[in-house]
């Protein structure tokens, strides 16, 4: 960050000096420019100049460049998957609602208790929009897919995983042995397993344990597994942050006659959670990317709808276009989240600003 900030302070000239100031920097700059000169023209030719922007599959056969017509034809499917076309607006609205909630939660000034209520209501509304009922045509969860599903898995896993994670962190710090032991076992077991194993257990082992005729929704199983996974990581981030709250804070509060529960709620947790935020943002970004693993159990998240779009025998073989497109979507979301994390860190810890 220091480099970028210095550049801001010094303007273009300082930036230029940093690029070519020393022989090593000059050489690195030249090498980077050389690589760009090699890579950019063919990429531009493929992605823009020789690209086919619209038309049927036949228009793309034999074209030298990218076939963006494929993305145009498949855009709806990639974004909302198997969701019934007539009700596609609901999937779009659900994605918009989740995105809006994230934006609403972005500014620390809005971090008030009502925001928790907004999230609960927002998630309930998302589930209602996607699943129907109460005036809307019901849509089975196996038909949910694409961007709304990826956002729902991310938001649902994190929102449900957060209280669970905080509870696990507190239990692990507890003076009593049983909660401490239980929390440690849960956290270390889940953190010791790759997410893909948790998903396989949720989708392969769990259904076989159920008696015949009873089945738990596949998406719910996957969501529960992911929530547990998120909770274990959140727990460790929160525990580390709580550890960093000076012991004197709790002691001072206790000596003022505050009950231990209130000490925790009013003194330790607020300070600890604030310190946990940067690592929580990192966990959230990682978790957003991890949701793509649900493809292995046949859930149509954004990455899996993209893959499925390339398997239509009318439009075979446009993997490069499909994965370039979906990579751009993931990149935009993750880059925005990561910049937000940096901004938040500066804002919350002004004393650390240099």
């Amino acid at each position: 960050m220091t480099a970028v900030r210095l550049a801001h302070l010094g303007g273009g000239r300082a930036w230029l000096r940093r690029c070519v100031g020393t022989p090593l920097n000059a050489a690195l700059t030249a090498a980077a420019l050389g690589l760009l000169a090699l890579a950019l023209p063919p990429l531009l030719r493929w992605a823009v100049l020789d690209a086919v922007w619209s038309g049927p599959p036949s228009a793309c056969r034999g074209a030298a460049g990218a076939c963006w017509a494929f993305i145009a034809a498949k855009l709806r499917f990639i974004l909302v998957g198997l969701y019934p076309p007539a009700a596609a607006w609901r999937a779009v609205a659900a994605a918009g609602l989740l995105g809006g909630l994230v934006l609403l939660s972005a500014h620390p000034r809005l971090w008030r208790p009502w925001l928790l209520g907004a999230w609960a209501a927002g998630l309930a509304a998302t589930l209602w929009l996607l699943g129907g009922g109460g005036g809307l045509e019901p849509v089975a969860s196996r038909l949910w897919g694409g961007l709304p599903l990826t956002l729902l898995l991310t938001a649902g896993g994190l929102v449900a995983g957060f209280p669970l994670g905080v509870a696990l962190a507190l239990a692990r710090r507890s003076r009593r042995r049983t909660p401490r032991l239980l929390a440690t076992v849960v956290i270390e077991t889940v953190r010791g397993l790759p997410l893909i194993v948790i998903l396989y257990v949720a989708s392969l082992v769990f259904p076989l344990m159920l008696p015949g005729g009873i089945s738990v929704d596949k998406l719910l199983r996957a969501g529960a597994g992911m929530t547990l996974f998120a909770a274990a990581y959140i727990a460790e981030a929160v525990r580390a942050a709580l550890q960093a709250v000076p012991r004197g804070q709790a002691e001072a509060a206790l000596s003022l006659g505050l009950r231990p529960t209130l000490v925790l709620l009013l003194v330790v947790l607020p300070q600890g959670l604030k310190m946990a935020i940067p690592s929580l943002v990192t966990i959230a970004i990682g978790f957003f990317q991890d949701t793509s693993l649900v493809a292995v159990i046949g859930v149509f998240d954004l990455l899996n709808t993209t893959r499925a779009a390339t398997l239509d025998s009318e439009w075979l073989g446009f993997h490069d276009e499909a994965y370039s497109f979906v990579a751009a979507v993931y990149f935009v979301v993750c880059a925005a989240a990561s910049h937000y994390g940096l901004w938040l860190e500066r804002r919350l810890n002004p004393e650390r600003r240099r």
Partner: protein
Amino acid sequence: MPDRKPVSLRLLAPFAAALALIAGTAQAGPTLDAVKARSTVKCGVLNSPGGSAPDANGEWRGFNADFCRAIAAALFNDPRKVEFVATTRQQRFTAIQSGEVDVLIAGVTQTVTRALQLGLHFGPIVLHDGQGFLVPKALKVAKATELDGATVCTMPGTTTELNVTDFFRLNKISYKPVVAEEFREVLAAFTAGRCDVLTQDASALAITRSQLPKPDDYVLLPERISKEPIAPAVRFGDDQWQEIVNWTIWATIQAEEFGIARDTVDGFAGSPDPSVRRFLGIDPGIGEAIRLDPRWAYNIVKAVGNYGEIFERNYGKDSPLKFARGPNELVQRGGLIVSPPFR
């Protein structure tokens, strides 16, 4: 319900019993009852071009998807009463064992271990696949035995490679292997002409060919040097359900043997042929035997067409894949596809 789960899973029985108590629900009856109660067929499919893949509107299209629709048409006279459940290669058998799907039509090769260890009954073979050879037309080769001295692109250590070695040795002809680790590299070598022959399962070769710059310049040789019989699967212990799946598939084949197609089926209403009349339910009998609507076979043909139509629409000449029927032609025309008599 007879035990249909592998032995190792019996260890989980106490958990299952505990969960059953929590859930407080009795075990559901056979699959057919469950299907009728919910009025839809849960059909496990696997994403594959031509086999089953969602189109731009999210509708499942493909050879396997059409057989799912045929079962729904037989039961409910409505091919839309299918819940397509997307499975993956790793998870498809669990889906059928656990009852998440009623029937698995997911490009599964029928083998003895799959039948007995997984507790699956396989239905009629819907596709005779197997390893084939794709060659440029310019090579002017009509049979695989004419490939003496050809260069063959393979990936090392695969069954595909072993099959090639065996085939050339058995036929006492020679070949030069061109080996590459990744299929992309193999394909690049073949497109660039560094090898004469590309070898994979024939259906996969048809898919590969449709993606080549000039698909018409290549020809799929008729030989199949391995056996990959693709069949639908149902769980053990559901005889009535299994018969419905079997006879639904045979009905599409029988329709083609009779020459009955989707567009022409109504014209057979006045047919004097007693076997056609029985088949279409104009004269009763078969519907009672299978305990379905007397016109169940008519409904299947009206919904998805006969076997040949299903094949050509998804894999064959009416599809972008242009997969020749070869062994998937009717027995009466020299292939392997045949239906037992409907009487």
